[in-house]
């Protein structure tokens, strides 16, 4: 039984570490602040979630586990607030997102440089469907 828990928490912690690395790499690969936010939210939700679940398995049924649950809940309730505040602040400050497709009424992907880059990205996607 102990061995099963040990292996499970190994798996969870390593999966969490993997998602944390993916988020950090994504933050460096993405082209603009809005797309970087998506990468950062992988760290905030999945990476932190798996890692903390693994730690909870290590801690067993103790107060330490309760504190870990509080940290997880803190992430899940404050994470979206910060992301939303960042996105809205960036938008109102005039940071134009790189878009391949703009479906907001009154907006169109204008044929300037940023839209050109977005079209390039979209074309890439057309060649290599995910």
């Amino acid at each position, binding site marked *: 039984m102990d061995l099963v828990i040990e292996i499970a928490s190994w798996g969870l912690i390593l999966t969490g570490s993997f*998602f944390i690395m*993916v*988020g950090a*790499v*994504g933050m460096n*690969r*993405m*082209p*603009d602040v*809005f*797309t970087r*936010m*998506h*990468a950062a*939210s*992988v760290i905030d*939700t*999945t990476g932190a*979630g798996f890692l903390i679940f693994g730690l909870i398995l290590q801690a067993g049924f103790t*107060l330490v586990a*309760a*504190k870990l649950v*509080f940290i997880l809940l803190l992430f*899940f*309730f404050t*994470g*979206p*607030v910060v*992301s*939303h505040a960042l*996105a*809205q602040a960036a*938008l109102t400050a005039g940071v134009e*997102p*790189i*878009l*391949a*497709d*703009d*479906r*907001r*009424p009154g*907006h169109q992907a204008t044929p300037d440089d940023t839209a050109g880059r*977005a079209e390039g*990205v*979209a074309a*890439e*996607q057309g060649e*290599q*469907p*995910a």
Partner: protein
Amino acid sequence: MRALILAIAMLGFWLALSGHFTPFLLTLGVLCVIGVAALARRMGLIDAEGVPIELLAPAVTYFPWLFFEILKSAWAVTRIVLSPSLPISPTMTVVRASQRTSAGLSTYANSITLTPGTITVGLRGDELTVHAIVREGADDLEGGGMDARVRRFEGGK
């Protein structure tokens, strides 16, 4: 009623964080909890929005569903980040939310933000402006599956 539930929740939180169970400290904790509950009541914070006890029961089924959604979209974003060509097609779209209460609306907006790959940028009336990292993410939201799920959550199911 709501004040009592708030007090019990705060007491549980305090006990879990302190880990001390001597009579003196317990008395102090209970006094503090009563004081804070009274303050919250006086500030008018105790209403369906501040202490949403109606949402506790539906949360039991909603959160596992949300975790599963987060896992699915996190895996999608992971594949995008790790693929050498970085196949993104960032999309801004406007989604109509059908929730009636502000708690339901903010649950919907925060659930969208919490799933990697979609972020709620703005909220005006019942229209959410959403930024998605690929077109498919925006298509899913426009399909309204999550909207319907949050409406059931808000309705107490």
